[in-house]
């Protein structure tokens, strides 16, 4: 039985894992770099051990240091969170060798899913659909034409040796095939000295939809439905929701079965995610598997009613799954947004620094998972994500309204954050209608520009507040009149007396 867990992570995910440990009566051990002595996960844990300098290459990523901290604290198990060592097969192996339970899948599963080509082959063997295309290079135009006809249009022809868009041709129409392949080949030849190309099905308006799975060590595996993650910036997810606005019950059931098959194909245990690329007609293809907890796991927790970290720990303990597939259903709608310490009005420039004031949005249907506090200096060494806001409501429309309300009331001063950008996303018509794909952010730039116009009244209110603060500040610095009791501002005392009279 696991009695003590070392959380090999920092930030919001460390705190999130510790909360579940506490509910299960498990002692939680934090580890921290020298830059994180003040971090909330250190204060929040039952125990805390220093594991090295600020740079994660010298601390959170050093297997040896984590293992030493686990031994020193006599932890039975390690939860890796996400990022850092969470998908490192060597770390999982090392834990096993040291007799420490790694709360995650086997090194074999991590390795197999970690390599794109091996994963693709395994998935094809398990009858999980993958993006149609050729893995081996094609040299012959005739062979290319046949392959393209088999895959179906549109396709992308790509230089095998290529990169940077060179030797790439999108083919939409049958008439373009010969010319397109030829052009790609000659361009590839010119650019890389090699005219081999391969062919891949082109997904016109791709959706990123992933399925959460849970698998125990007794061969049971279930899925916890999908998450729609198509709102992305620089390939980073910004907003996630479940259910997906484009999903149908039959496709959901089918994709869920394929997700379970995918996990079973690598003898998976623990929580994991199967990512699919999906087109507008709901054709879907395996993209990759994340062999760990995801940042966006809370929306599944809210809609399905399962604590995923608790299930991970129970699975690691060797217990069978607490739920059967038929026990699970999706209840209502959940949306998550990720808040970054970045300046959305200045090309998303990172904004580490000292947090001055936080107003957290709470209330019905709102979950806030964060780690910063007032006076905390956000280190520049780590990921800029500072919190996640998760809302739930019976319907998607109500969930959007609730997210707008929560973002409206969410205020962090001292650093720049993406809160205003996220608010604007909620107001984009395509988002409200649920009609969006991974091109969402570039397609909707005009809605996402910062609002530059403030009314004269608001501008004047701002001026007034700053001016009064300035006057009060001057006043408080005035030298004392020799009488120490009178050191306090006369102006302030006068104000206070007057307001007492009003009472």
């Amino acid at each position: 039985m696991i009695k003590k867990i070392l959380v090999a992570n920092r930030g919001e995910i460390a705190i999130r894992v510790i909360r579940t440990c506490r509910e299960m009566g498990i002692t939680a051990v934090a580890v921290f770099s020298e830059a994180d002595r003040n971090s909330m996960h250190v204060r929040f844990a039952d125990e805390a051990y220093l594991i090295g300098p600020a740079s994660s290459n010298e601390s959170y990523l050093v297997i040896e240091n984590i293992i030493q901290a686990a031994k020193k604290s006599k932890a039975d198990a390690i939860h890796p969170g996400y990022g850092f060592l969470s998908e490192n097969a060597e770390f999982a192996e090392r834990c096993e060798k040291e007799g420490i339970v790694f709360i995650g899948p086997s090194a074999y599963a991590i390795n197999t899913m970690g390599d794109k080509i091996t994963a693709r082959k395994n998935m094809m063997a398990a009858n999980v659909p993958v993006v149609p295309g050729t893995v081996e290079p094609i040299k012959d135009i005739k062979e290319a034409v046949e392959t393209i006809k088999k895959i179906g249009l549109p396709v992308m022809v790509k230089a095998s040796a290529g990169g940077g868009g060179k030797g790439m041709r999108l083919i939409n129409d049958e008439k373009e095939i010969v010319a397109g392949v030829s052009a790609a080949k000659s361009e590839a030849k010119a650019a890389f000295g090699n005219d081999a190309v391969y062919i891949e099905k082109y997904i016109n308006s791709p959706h990123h939809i992933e399925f959460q799975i849970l698998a125990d060590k007794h061969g049971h595996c279930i899925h916890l439905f999908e998450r729609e993650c198509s709102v992305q910036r620089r390939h980073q997810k910004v907003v996630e929701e479940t259910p997906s606005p484009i999903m149908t019950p039959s496709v959901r059931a089918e994709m869920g079965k394929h997700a379970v098959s995918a996990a079973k194909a690598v003898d998976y245990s623990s929580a994991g995610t199967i990512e699919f690329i999906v087109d507008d007609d709901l054709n879907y293809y395996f993209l990759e598997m994340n062999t760990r907890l995801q940042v966006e796991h809370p929306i599944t927790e809210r809609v399905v009613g399962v604590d995923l970290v608790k299930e991970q720990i129970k699975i690691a303990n060797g217990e069978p799954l607490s739920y059967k597939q038929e026990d699970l259903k999706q209840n209502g709608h959940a949306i998550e947004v990720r808040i970054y310490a970045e300046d959305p009005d200045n090309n998303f420039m990172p904004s580490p620094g000292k947090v001055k004031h936080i107003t957290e949005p709470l209330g019905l249907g709102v979950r806030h998972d964060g780690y910063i506090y007032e006076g905390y200096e956000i280190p520049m060494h780590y990921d800029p994500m500072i919190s996640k806001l998760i809302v739930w409501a019976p319907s998607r429309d109500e969930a959007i309204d609730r997210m707008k309300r929560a973002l409206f009331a969410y205020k962090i001063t001292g650093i720049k954050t993406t809160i205003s950008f996220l608010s604007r996303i909620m107001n984009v018509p395509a988002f409200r209608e649920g009609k969006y794909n991974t091109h969402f952010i570039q397609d909707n730039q005009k809605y996402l520009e910062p609002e530059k116009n403030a009314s004269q009244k608001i501008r004047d209110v701002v001026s007034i507040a700053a001016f009064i603060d300035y006057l009060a500040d001057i006043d408080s610095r005035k030298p004392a009149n020799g009488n120490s009791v009178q050191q306090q501002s006369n102006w302030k005392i006068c104000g206070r007396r007057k307001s007492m009279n009003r009472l």
Partner: protein
Amino acid sequence: MSYEISLNGQQESIELLNKDGNLIHISVGDRQYHVDLKEVEKGVYSIILDGTSFNVELTTTGNKKYLVDTLYNSFDVEIIDAETKYMNSRKKDNDDDQSFISTPMPGKVVKILVEEGQEVKAGETLVIVSAMKMESEYKVTTDKIVKEILVKEGDNVDGDQPLITLE
């Protein structure tokens, strides 16, 4: 006493006309307001104007300078008193001249691409600084000579700290 106040670069006069507890009579430009204003937390003001409730949060960004956040917007505000006016008039001559390279936020110096005494062309990158897993390049805006390099690779630097001086 009347002051000037600059809000996102636009300058107007401002004057406190009367103050009775938290009830304030004030003019901004040619507009007069009666507001109920209270500092409810350090740097956080609750303002009621004609029944409308505003929350305004101030962060001091320099001498007489504030970053002011409302629920929807952020504003750069500066109080302009006689001293500031004098300083501004003196500074004007050198204002468009870039005398050093700095970063707006704290970070770590990844790479320094120049040496002291080196001539650099407008648009040339002098230094790369990383913060929160993202690297940013800092360039010169006009042709310059590198005068002094104040940091070395691997150094942690604060926001607005001079890294390289130019002439």
